[in-house]
């Protein structure tokens, strides 16, 4: 596989990553701050004889993804917070029909129409299910433009492997920022390594396939839900992802994801050079949450503290608290509505956590 280096925005990197990872179908609806993604797809998908549709609504876009995925190809939509809220019904159907799908949320400020500033306030919506019913989506949170590109491969693979929707949760800063990245030149097109015997292709030489999430007979839905739960247990055990920094001796461990983790990391590295025992956990997967590393630290050490930093008023905070099981203190710093915690604010929060 040949690679080349390009300067590209996060939104474009996600689009290029999807194309490289074999995405055959994209449907989207304009919304800021993710428009570059849709525009990139509109240009590059048809060039590669793949399908791009500008849908009439977010509802149509996510239900097109349902149809394309049911027909057996890698399918994707993208949007930003209010648009993702509109897609929730469709995501629930996709999870209920056990279809793979890729949904990108470049988060902006909420609630309501909010604003177009970066935010991380959709964490609950993404990690708790979001739509109706007992289901979960994979949630992957890139912090770098390169990582945004790379996670599209992992995301589509996870979606196919577990027949489950995947959400890429980025924020407006990541979407808009440009960084040099390495892209792959020859990607798999039809992803032949993934067999989809359940896909709707016409019932030539086999019994008919049905893509559905409807179970009316008594007991059927409960049985199906238990099957989903079993799948989620496997995912929770096998698919935790994080980056850890200075965890061996850190007295204060900052926990941050996405853009927020970049600011936190630069603080951690600066303070380390001054001899301060600070560390960082950057969850890369938000669902399943990398619970085990928190449990391990909490069960095996004393006199340590966690400091959760988010562009929200404390959503991932709850997952950290649940993982730590009350064994170590968990402090919090957060701003929302377009506010981003600054290095100065972080240093102050660390000082107060240490005292």
């Amino acid at each position, binding site marked *: 596989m040949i690679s080349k280096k390009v300067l590209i925005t996060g939104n474009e990197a996600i689009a290029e990553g999807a194309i490289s990872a074999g995405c055959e179908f994209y449907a989207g609806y304009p919304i800021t701050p993710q428009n570059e993604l849709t525009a990139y797809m509109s240009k590059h998908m048809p060039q590669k004889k793949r399908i791009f549709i500008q849908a*009439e609504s977010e509802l149509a876009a996510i*239900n097109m993804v*349902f*149809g394309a995925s049911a027909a057996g190809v890698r399918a994707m939509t993208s949007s930003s917070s209010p648009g993702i809220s509109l897609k929730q019904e469709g995501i629930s159907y996709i999870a209920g029909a056990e279809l793979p799908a890729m949904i990108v949320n470049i988060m902006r400020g909420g609630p309501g129409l909010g604003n177009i500033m970066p935010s991380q306030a959709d964490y609950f919506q993404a990690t708790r299910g979001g739509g109706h019913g007992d289901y979960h989506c994979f949630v992957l949170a890139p912090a770098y433009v390169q990582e945004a590109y790379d996670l599209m491969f992992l995301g589509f693979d996870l979606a196919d492997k577990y027949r489950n929707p995947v959400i890429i949760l980025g924020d407006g800063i990541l979407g808009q920022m440009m960084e040099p990245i390495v892209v792959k030149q020859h990607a798999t097109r039809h992803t032949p390594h993934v067999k989809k015997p359940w896909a*709707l*292709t*016409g019932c030539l030489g086999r019994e008919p396939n049905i893509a559905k999430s409807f179970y009316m007979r008594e007991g059927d839905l409960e049985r199906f839900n238990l099957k989903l739960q079993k799948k989620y247990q496997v995912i929770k055990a096998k698919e935790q992802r994080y980056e850890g920094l200075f965890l061996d001796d850190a007295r204060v461990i900052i926990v941050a994801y996405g853009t927020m983790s970049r600011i936190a990391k630069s603080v951690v590295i600066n303070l380390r050079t001054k001899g301060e025992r600070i560390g960082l956990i950057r969850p890369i997967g938000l669902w399943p949450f990398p619970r085990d590393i928190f449990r391990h630290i909490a069960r095996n050490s004393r006199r340590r503290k966690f400091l959760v930093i988010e562009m929200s008023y404390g959503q991932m905070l709850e997952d950290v608290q649940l993982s730590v099981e009350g064994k170590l203190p968990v402090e919090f710093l957060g701003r929302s509505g377009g506010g981003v915690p600054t290095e100065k604010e972080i240093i102050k929060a660390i000082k107060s956590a240490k005292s």
Partner: protein
Amino acid sequence: MKKIFSRPKSLREVSTHYCPGCGHGIAHRLIAEVVDELGIRERVIGVAPVGCAVIAYDYWNFDCSEAAHGRALAVATAIKRVRPENIVFTYQGDGDLAAIGTGETIHAANRGENLTVIFINNAIYGMTGGQMAPTTLLGQKTATTLEGRQANLQGYPLKISEMLALLPAVKYVERVCLSSAQEIMKTKKAIRQAFLNQMQNKGFSLVEILSPCPTYWGISPTQSLNWIRDVMSKEFPIGRLK
């Protein structure tokens, strides 16, 4: 002895859940017969609605997808774009196609998606207990219009087929009904045309079928057929619109 009549292969050997006198069973069978006669059973992908026909895929014997309420044409659009060699159709009621799914209906039609749409108009929401549909007639009593539909409160019966026929990308729109054996044969012919159009890549084709719902019209199956002939088809005239 030569067998001259049998169950279409595209119809499974099961009994349906529909009420006595309902039109869905007839419409399902007509589609199955057409699919068999065109020899496309192994190429067809149906998209079932939310409404009384929600489990139509349990009755047809070919690949099918469900769709969220109103979204059948979004789902079908994607299936057809991904698999242009397959024959893709939606089967939707009046609430699904002309109320909650109006946006998907108009835009799939306006894009000229090469799809076949079977639109069952029975002027009522059956599955949920007989509430007003967008196509409910003025004066018609329903669970949510106890005194009858009034234009100043609930608007007029929505003629979505006429609206769709105005769009340049729409190739074929015909309204038919199930009120008699003769009308049923005309209905089958229209369904066949709508499938043929897709096979010949002609574009968006829709057949609106006026279909009886004795249960929620509160009249007998025979009276229901007469009501289609004498009342409903006056509001929704039978014939080719495009």
